[in-house]
Structure formats: structure tokens, C-alpha cells
């Protein structure tokens, strides 16, 4: 088990290296650079900027230098656009905010999603099932950039609910972004739970449990749910990785100082170190989430044991 985990962590290294290489190649292939401005920057200044940021060196050396900086000093470089910030500042200041919104949204999505999924499954083909699944499809298909503004318009501007339209700092600021962010994952989890539950409650061992005369609640929670959750957890792990790395749209709509927007703006700004730092961060988070999911299988399903 620990050996397996260690092996998987070590596998992170080639994965990150591949991400690093890919991003490095892509941004050097992209036309337009950080110093392309409406008013041309004089050559002498460009030279100094290139020298300051090491962009005057041969590509292979830039590739190696940055890598060495990351590995030896955890130095992800400076931001070209926000010169008063380093990439580490950006990640350090904004990633925790994305995590905060993401974790709360995820907690809500998991609790409600799984509950609704179970309800839907045990009341299959009833009115309740149809209503819940309608909302699940709605939640899964309507994107955050529609849900967010819709909530602002409906709740705040029309109904006058006393919440801020956006911003950061108090729990009240979290309400709408969390709902917006939770809706999609909740719907997906509800649908997965329902499908998986339906499969499991038809299994022989459930019939056995019922035949033994166990109360229905015990059958569902203790016998059915544990097995039904395996596919759900796979999905939840991936969703969690996506959610805590910050949603560009949710951060954009609600002015959340999160890391998600940097993933997008660093491209249009050609802010290479920021793009690189954020890409590596996201790759690490996603890889770790996958690892956690795989380890969780072992706990949930005795048939899966890692050597």
C-alpha cells in the first residue's frame, strides 16, 4: 500500500516534466510575446528585459534554468505583467482562496448530490425521481457563466436578497459563488449515485440482506451505498481537482481573488512564468487527486488491494 503510494508519487515526476515540456514548447510556438505593446518597446529595453528574465539565452538553457530554479529553490519565476509579484506570491495569495471556495462547494455538492442520488434511486420512476433528475440535468448542462449572472440578477437585483454581487472577505461573499460552483458537481454526483445505486440494489447480496429481514435503511446505507460509492468517488476526485483549482468563470463573475483566472489571463498577457507555474500547480493537484481516489478504492472495496 505505502509502496504503491510512493510509486505513484514518484510517477508524478515524469508527468510534471511532460507538462513542463509541453507548456514550454507551446508558449514558444505561440506568436506574440510579453513585450509586444502598442507602442514599440525600444530594442535596448527589450534587450534588458530579455536579459533580466533570461530570455536572451538559448531555448534549451531557458528550459533547464527554469527547471533548476523550480527544483532547487521552488522558484517559479517573476510575473512579467504584475512586476511587484512573483509567481509564488500569486499562487500563495490566490490559490488558498480558490481552495476555500472549492472545498465548501464540494462539501455541499457531495452531501446533496449523494443524498439526492440515493433518494432518486430508491424512488425510481416516481414524480420525485423525475423532478430531481430534471434538476440534475439542468445543473449538469447549464454552465457556471449562465448560472452565476442569473443568480445575481434573480436573487439580488430582482428579489433584493441582501447579498453582495461579488467580492471577497466575509462569509456573505461566499454564498453565490459556492452555489454556482456546487451546482454542476452536485448534479453530476447525483446522477452517478443514482445510476450506481440502481445497479447495486438489484444485486443478489442486497436481496439476501432484505431477505434476512434487515430494515430498509440499513440495507441502503450499510450494504448498498458502500459499493455504489466506488464509481462516484472516481468522479468526485476528478471534480474536486477541477473545483479547487478555481473556476475562471466563477472567479470572473464574482470577483474572487483566486488562481483560476490566472490560468486564462496569463495566456493573453504572455506572462510565461505565471502560465508555467499555474500549469504545474494544476497538474500536481490533479495527479494527487487521482492518487487519493485510487487509494480510496482500497478502503472501499476489499477486492482491490495494492501490492
Amino acid at each position, binding site marked *: 500500500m505505502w509502496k504503491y503510494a510512493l510509486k505513484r508519487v514518484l510517477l508524478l515526476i515524469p508527468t510534471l516534466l511532460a507538462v513542463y515540456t509541453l507548456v514550454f514548447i507551446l508558449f514558444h510556438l505561440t*506568436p*506574440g510575446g510579453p513585450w509586444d505593446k*502598442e507602442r*514599440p518597446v525600444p530594442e*535596448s529595453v527589450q534587450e534588458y528585459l530579455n536579459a533580466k528574465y533570461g530570455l536572451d539565452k538559448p531555448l534549451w538553457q531557458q528550459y533547464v534554468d527554469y527547471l533548476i530554479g523550480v527544483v532547487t529553490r521552488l522558484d517559479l519565476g517573476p510575473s512579467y505583467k*504584475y*512586476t511587484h509579484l512573483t509567481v509564488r506570491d500569486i499562487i500563495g495569495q*490566490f490559490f488558498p482562496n480558490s481552495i476555500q471556495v472549492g472545498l465548501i462547494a464540494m462539501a455541499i455538492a457531495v452531501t446533496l448530490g449523494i443524498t439526492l442520488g440515493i433518494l432518486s434511486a430508491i424512488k425510481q420512476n416516481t414524480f420525485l425521481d423525475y423532478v430531481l433528475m430534471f434538476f440534475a440535468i439542468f445543473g449538469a448542462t447549464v454552465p457556471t457563466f449562465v448560472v452565476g449572472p442569473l443568480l445575481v440578477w434573480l436573487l439580488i437585483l430582482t428579489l433584493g436578497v441582501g447579498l*453582495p454581487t461579488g467580492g471577497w472577505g466575509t462569509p456573505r461573499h461566499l454564498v453565490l459563488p459556492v452555489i454556482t460552483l456546487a451546482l454542476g458537481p452536485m448534479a453530476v454526483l447525483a446522477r452517478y449515485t443514482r445510476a450506481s445505486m440502481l445497479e447495486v440494489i438489484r444485486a443478489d447480496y442486497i436481496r439476501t440482506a432484505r431477505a434476512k429481514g434487515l430494515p430498509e435503511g440499513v440495507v441502503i446505507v450499510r450494504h448498498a451505498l458502500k459499493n455504489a460509492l466506488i464509481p462516484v468517488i472516481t468522479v468526485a476526485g476528478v471534480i474536486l481537482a477541477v473545483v479547487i483549482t478555481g473556476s475562471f468563470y466563477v472567479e470572473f463573475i464574482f470577483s474572487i481573488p483566486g488562481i483560476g483566472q490566472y490560468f486564462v489571463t496569463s495566456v493573453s498577457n504572455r506572462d510565461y512564468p505565471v502560465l508555467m507555474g499555474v500549469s504545474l500547480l494544476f497538474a500536481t493537484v490533479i495527479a494527487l487527486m487521482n492518487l487519493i481516489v485510487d487509494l480510496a478504492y482500497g478502503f472501499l472495496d476489499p477486492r482491490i488491494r495494492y501490492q
Partner: protein
Amino acid sequence: MREFNRREFLVGMTGTGLAVVLAACTPTQQPTQPSQPAGGLAKEQVIRIPLTEPPTLDPGLATDTVSLDVIVQLFDGLVGFDDAGNIFGIHAEKWDVSSDGITYTFYLRPGIKWSNGRPITAQDYEWAWKRNIDPKTASDYATTLFPIKNAQAIHEGKANPQTLGVRARDDRTLEVTLEAPAAYFLRLASTWTMFPLPREAIEKYGDKWTEAGNIVTNGAFKMSSWRHQQEIVLERNEDYWGKKPTLQRAVYRIFPEGAEEQVLAAYENDELDVARGIPPAQVDRILNDPKFKDQIKIFDQSGTMFIAVNNRRPHLRDPRVRKALGMTLERQVLIDRVLKVVAKPAYSLQPPGIMGRNPDIWPKEDVEAARRLMADAGYPNGQGFPEITFTYNTSAAWKALGEYLQQRWQQTLGIKVKLQEMEWRVFLQWRRTPEASQTYDVYRGGWLSDYEDPNNWYNVLWDSAEDPGVFNLGWKNPDYDRIVRQARAELDQQKRAQLYAQAEKILADEYPAIPVYHYGARHLVKPWVKNWTISRILGFAPLRDVQILAR
């Protein structure tokens, strides 16, 4: 200064997001605010303003409206200009100009201090200018300093920054030597690149000197906090030497770039006292809602949006063709219906307030005359005229402009137009390649004054020395070059005005680019905010005179 890209980004963004949803909703009737405040000043003098994250608060490095919005509250310079163009001293109590126009001597007023208590000295100016011109500082606006002796050589790495023609004769006397007479030098001296800098803070904290806690300022406000991507709070500088503002505090709430819809929602929810700009999708709703009638404030900007024309292309080299292209545009329709911006039709390339400007001598909108010009040029009904390409950077607005041109030029002149869209940085890089300068036809251009002086227009844009530069590609007129170079140095205002009037005449005859409109700005301002205004230059909002009335 470049055409601000914020709006373009925004238009592109909102097309996918809020605009879609909000525009589909009918306006709601909310209890209306009393349109007239009760009178008297509010106890709490606090204003809440939207902003995006400033790329820098270093006056030596700032190039954009967002950064300047905060910088002008925090820092002062030698002199300033009012809207009528009259100069007044700020740190400079008085100044002399030598008769040959080469030496400027500024005498600083006593009692001016940095926020750390240290007096502001002439050495602070000297140090700042030498630092800003140093190519190592990589200041985009270092060109502002170019009229000063040796500046250009230093910036190009050919001379030591210490040789810059500026010297603190003593703590309160600053002597500046120019390379050649420059009639616009005092205008330049009023801009942020020439503000003094706190050497101690910059040497101690490096790039991080502008962070709250590190920053040392000298303006009517000082920084109380800067939480990145979240909020900047300024408070009144109680030790300010001059007239202190009424405002006690200014809270800049930081939105992501392009979040105009969110700003409007926050404004409508009374979380902000000002909203700068109305998203295009919301313009009709806001303008038709009586609730907002008294809250809409319109400001002129010193700038022109124009269509740059590649004069190197054989078929565009004939001024008659360029004029014909310009004369067929219906500018008011374009402004009101296609782009939905606040702007004024432009016939001259120069915006109002620039010496020499004379829109009356420029070609007017006249389709018949335009057709005749095309026929005279050898292209009756567009016959024999090759298809031309309009290039623009990705944005809903410029796409709409392109489609308008496509349809209009086809309809009126029989000219086929192809649209070519490019991502912003790709566009910027492409525009400077030799290949582009040979092959493109027309593209979206625009210019905002850095300082309201004809030099910033006639010389910086259309002198042939600026080719290939930003907007002049292949247009050359030796008379024009001679006149504007003479005018740049002319200290006699009357003679200078005459020279620029001649230059304007040549531009009107030759039509190197197609003027479309002069920029404006449309803000929403709550009724309790008094004296909200913005600078015609770059549109930043000085807060010194703003007051909050009791609601």
C-alpha cells in the same frame, strides 16, 4: 498612448457571459433613489470605486489608465495643467526658461514632504529621472524624457544614465538641460514619468516597493492597504502641504479585467458609487430607465479612433482613394447603432484641444463625391480595385466595425473587403513584421493623448521618421516633416499654432489615415457623489475635489 485594450477585452468577454443573460431580462422596477440628495456633506466621506488590478503603482513604469487612476492620488509632480490648458505649479513654486529654450530651472516650494516625513528635494527628481531613463528600468514611457540632453542615447544604451541633462543645484533647485528646444517640455513635466521617486524605498524593497507598507508617497492621499485582486484603500494624507481633499477614504474594489457587467450589477446594488462605462448590451436598458437619467455623466477624451491605411500598397497610395474610403462612412450610425459607444464623429485625425486642429478643412461624409474620387483615381464603381483586408484584434466591437466597413464599402464604392481577426499580442507582433508592413491594407487604430500637445499627434504619429512605427506606414511628405519639426521647437505660441495649422492642412489633403471618432466616456455616478470627473488624458479620475453629499 495606445488605444486602451480593456474595453476590447471586455466586449469579447461579456459576449459569452453576463451580457447574454442580463440582456435577455427586462429591467426591473426597484424603489428609486431620491434623485436629489438632502443637501450638506455626509459624515462619512468615503467613495467606492471599481478598478482592475493595477499592473504597477510605480509612476516611472505606469502606462495604463488603471495604474494611473491610483498613482495620481498618491503622487504629485512639478507642474499641472487645467482643462483650458493653463499651467500651474505643484511642487514647483516657479520656473524659468532660458531664452534659447534649452535650460529649464524649477524652484521647489518649501514644506513639501514624503509620507515618511522626509522633505521632497530636487535630488529626488534628479534620481527619479535618471532611474527612469536607464534602459535597465525598462520604462515604457521613458520616451517622455527624450527631449532632455542625452536621454535618447542613454535609453539606447549608448551613454551612462548619470550624463542625463538634469541636475539638482541644491535641495530646492532643479536644472534641466534639453537636447534641443521643445515647446512641449512643460507638458511632459506634468506627466507621471517625471514625478519624483522615493529612492530609499525603491533601493530597499526593489520591485516590491509599491506594496502597502513599503510604499512612500507624496500626494493628497496615501495608501492604507492593497489586497491584490481584491481592494485598494487610500486615505486622506493629513500632512499634505496643499489643499486637503474632503474625502477621508477611497475604496477601490478590484474586479477582474473585462468585468463591466459585474461592475454595473454592483453599482445597481449600491455597492459602488460609480460605474465607469456601460456594457454595450446594457446601454439601451440604462439609457431608457428614468432611474438612471441623472446618474449618467459623459466625458470627452483626448483621443481619436481611426482606420490606419497602408500607404505602401499601390492601390492605397492615391489620396483620392483614401479620402473616398473615409467619405463614405456614416460615423454617427457607426457610433450609435453599430458600436454603441459614447463618441463624437471625427473628421480631423486630431481630437479637440490639440493646437492646429481644424476639422472644417477635412473631407466630409459625401458618397457621391467619394464615388467621383474613385472614378478619378481610375476605379469607377470599384472596377479594377483589388479586394482589401481589414485587420483587427479579436473583439466583438472591432468585428462589428469590420462588418460595417465590409458592407458599407461594397455598397457605396464597390470595394470588396476581407476581414482578418488576430489575437491581441499576435496582432501587435504581426503589425511590426516587414511582411505585414508590405502586405496589409487597413487596420483598426487609435491614439489617446499622453499629453495635450500637438507634438503628441502631428510629430509622434505622422512624421515620416515614425515610419514604420505604430500607425504611419509609408506616408511621407517632406514639407510636413519640415513644418512639424520646426513647430516642435517653436517657443512662440502664435508661430507654433500657425505651423501646426499648416501641418493640419497637409494631413487633410493627404488623408494618411481615416478618422472615425473621438473617444468619450460614459459613467454612472450616484447622486450623492459631487465633482466626479475624469482627465481628458487617459481618463483617470482625480479624487481631490470629490465630495460625498448626505443622502
